[in-house]
């Protein structure tokens, strides 16, 4: 007898209760997942009842069910967006052919690599954020953190489903390895650099969910175009959840800015020292965090010129953002794209084949989207009558991947000397003192309706609940 009631425990629309092979694989994996969650999931959260959104089906009513649950008992489900049996591939060399329901042998290794890389980021961010619950600025924010955490967990399930279902034995081994790597572990780190960085404080957390989870959105959007239909349908559904993470980031930073602006007006000062003494985060510090998280995140898109990116696209594994809405030939042979590199101490543009520049194409789409949200933060400052403007740094600033790696570029896009960089890096990136100051503000506020001094309350609660609702109950 199976130990798991599949429809109850693992809500799904992949016919799990009738797929014995998949059941056996998941039954082996699930205890290890719970073990991983207990081990490196949110710290000291075992007994809390958290007001979480759970997906129990993919229709609009089904994927947003709210209620207090223990995170350990969260119903990590497996969902594919509804399929279209006649879907055809809409880009690359297989354009016009029927979408694949199984993995074609020749693309197996590349697809597995894509899925594992995506899957690896999901548990990684849970690990990075595991201590944040101890310094939550409010009961409301604590709930949002946990919602992000369980959804990252569910995204891991989604990727593991694909590995188990479509990649046989090596898929199962990769699924195990996803639980074995650890963020920041020197011997067995997570695959991508940004996911081995610490998320030491809530400013970093909000920046991470705004900038880095938005990278997730763009990667998922590109995968949602995939010729491999199960991957496309899985990632489409994940995107609906990813939106919450970006909401946490965008509204979190917005509330911090609002509080700072309020204090600036009360004290009639823009002096960082006075504002810090008043217990709020000064705007230049917020700008430095923006610079850091933006630059680290745009590295995640990979090298500006990449033959892998060309292969992934041409073979139909990964499309562009909103591929279906673009009007070119969707094959891209003969088209070019502009990338940056350094020549004679200056940034210069050069035209390269677009197929090789697809990482850059996605990065530029991402940058446009990021900028729009930063503008919405500026509206908060506008409203408060404060002339300061936040902006994302130049895309060549502080890069570690691709042609711009290691080039010293100021946030305004000027190439600078090593000396100038050294002299001014603390104006541009968070210094140890900045991080220590932000860290010093972090204390635990969990009484419903109360908020830490450095952040404004949100405008509305979650799921029409009041802001002072008891989102997390401590038992």
């Amino acid at each position, binding site marked *: 007898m199976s130990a798991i009631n599949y*429809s*109850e425990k693992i809500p799904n629309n992949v016919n799990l*209760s009738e797929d014995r092979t998949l059941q056996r694989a998941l039954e082996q994996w699930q205890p290890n997942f719970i073990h991983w969650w207990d081990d490196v999931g949110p710290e000291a959260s075992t007994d809390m009842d958290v007001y979480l959104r759970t997906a*129990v089906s993919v*229709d*609009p*009513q*089904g*994927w*947003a*069910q*709210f*209620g207090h649950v223990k995170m350990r008992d969260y119903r990590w489900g497996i969902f594919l967006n509804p399929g279209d049996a006649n879907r055809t591939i809409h880009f690359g060399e297989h354009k016009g052919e029927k979408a694949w329901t199984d993995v074609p042998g020749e693309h197996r290794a590349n697809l597995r690599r894509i899925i594992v890389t995506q899957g690896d980021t999901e548990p990684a961010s849970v690990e990075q954020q595991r201590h944040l619950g101890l310094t939550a600025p409010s009961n409301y924010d604590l709930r949002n953190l946990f919602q992000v955490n369980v959804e990252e967990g569910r995204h891991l399930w989604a990727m593991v489903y694909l590995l188990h279902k479509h990649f046989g034995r090596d898929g199962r081994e990769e699924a195990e390895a996803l639980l074995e790597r650890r963020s920041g572990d020197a011997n067995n780190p997570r695959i991508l650099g940004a996911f081995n960085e610490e998320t030491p404080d809530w400013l970093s957390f909000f920046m991470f969910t705004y900038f880095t989870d938005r990278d997730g959105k763009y990667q998922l959007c590109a995968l949602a175009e995939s010729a491999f239909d199960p991957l496309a349908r899985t990632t489409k559904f994940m*995107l*609906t959840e*990813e*939106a*919450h993470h*970006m*909401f946490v980031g*965008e*509204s979190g930073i917005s509330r911090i800015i609002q509080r700072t602006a309020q204090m600036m007006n009360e004290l009639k000062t823009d002096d960082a020292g006075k504002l810090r003494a008043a217990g709020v985060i000064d705007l230049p510090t917020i700008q430095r965090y923006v610079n850091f998280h933006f630059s680290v995140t745009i590295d995640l898109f990979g090298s500006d010129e990449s033959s892998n990116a060309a292969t992934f696209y041409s073979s139909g594994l990964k499309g562009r953002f909103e591929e279906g809405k673009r009007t070119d030939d969707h094959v891209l042979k003969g088209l070019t794209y502009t990338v940056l590199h350094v020549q004679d101490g200056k940034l210069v543009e050069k035209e390269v084949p677009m197929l090789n520049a697809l990482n850059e194409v996605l990065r530029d789409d991402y940058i446009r989207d990021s900028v*729009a*949200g930063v503008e*919405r933060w500026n*509206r908060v400052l506008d409203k408060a009558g404060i002339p300061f403007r936040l902006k994302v740094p130049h895309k060549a600033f502080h890069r570690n991947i691709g042609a711009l790696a290691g080039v010293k570029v100021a946030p305004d896009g000027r190439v600078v000397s090593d000396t100038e960089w050294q002299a001014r890096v603390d104006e541009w990136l968070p210094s140890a003192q900045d991080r220590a100051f932000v860290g010093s503000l972090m204390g635990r506020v969990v009484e419903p309706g109360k908020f830490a001094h450095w952040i404004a309350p949100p*405008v*509305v*609660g*979650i*799921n*029409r*609940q*009041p802001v002072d*609702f008891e989102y997390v109950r401590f038992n």
Partner: protein
Amino acid sequence: MDAPLGAAVIKQHLIDPEICIRCNTCESICPVKAITHDSRNYVVDVDKCNLCMDCISPCPTGSIDNWRVLTRSNAYSVEAQLGWDELPAEVPLPAGAEAGIPVAAVAPQPVPLTQLEAGEEPFVASAWGATLPPWSAAHPYVNLYGARTGPIAATVAGNFRVTAVGRDYDTHHIMLDFGTMPFPVLEGQSIGILPPGLDANGRPHHARQYSIASPRNGERPGYNNVSLTIKRVLEDHQGNPVRGVGSNYMCDLKVGDTVQVIGPFGNSFLMPNHPRSNIVMICTGTGSAPMRAMTEWRRRLRQSGKFEGGKLMLFFGARTKEELPYFGPLQNLPRDFIDINFAFSRTPGAPKRYVQDVMRERAADLAALLRDPDSFFYVCGLKSMEEGVVLALRDVAREAGLSWEEIGAALKREGRLHLETY
């Protein structure tokens, strides 16, 4: 909706641009493509939005849940909304527009709202719920009294408490008599009550809707009266103290008082009338009102000896036995007439049991009914029960080796699964 289009009062769905993060979830989920965006804002096209509410709960920010009551001719265009940095302020309805008319009576609604109390929470139909009545349903009269005709006066003919005396729950059985004025109703329909006085904004209260708890030929057979089951609301869904305007007004009525009534409403949550049709009723609290009406009509038919009924099965949930309306009378119904299953979620010392738990326990009998094309399913109660109940039905079907996709689709298509939650 015969009123001139421009003057009609509508409820327009808007997105708050200050809270929206432009995540595209609503646009991707909207079944009628009413949501669109430019580089600045996400907006709802008033000409396309059918108020289906599919976008409400998926929105991660709550920005989606904004509404303005205005006349059709003053509705905000897509172009206007795209230019917004913030939502416009509420504008009072112009003189002559029918202020105080409940939106539910104006906007198209496939099924009536019931028990709208703590705020105007709109009805969200689950994807499996039918919008058509059973083939053997009697033809309902709807909207005889409302926006154009004005309300009708009814006289209170009775007001009894139907739950055990306790501190925090108080449910009343209220009888209204229409005298010589026509007010024909069917089981499953509802009516609207206009509480006297003004709301916090100085406007007349909007109508409160209540399901009818009596059968078509009257609470007392042969009389022109109806009964309602109304729980006195003393706290909102979060447990904060709040006195429900409609429910307290109703529960405090004395025999002989008159109330202003509009309706009837509802043209799909109706019972089958053909011989040997089975009725499965799943409800919580005052969601029992339509179930009482249907049961009582079948009981009267059975008593007449001229009708061969099918099976009646009732799943009835409440926090405790004491809170369950009509607990005593229900106990007295013959077992071969109705199969009653209670679920109490807060009985001290006993594990929590919800209606869906009890449904799963009765899977064998439910599966037999699911197989029978003469079975009709009715769900009424708190919104939170809906998903659990439909999931339980699905699981019962699957465990019996049936395809829920087929059965669920047939239930919906043939008007055999009706959901009414609030």
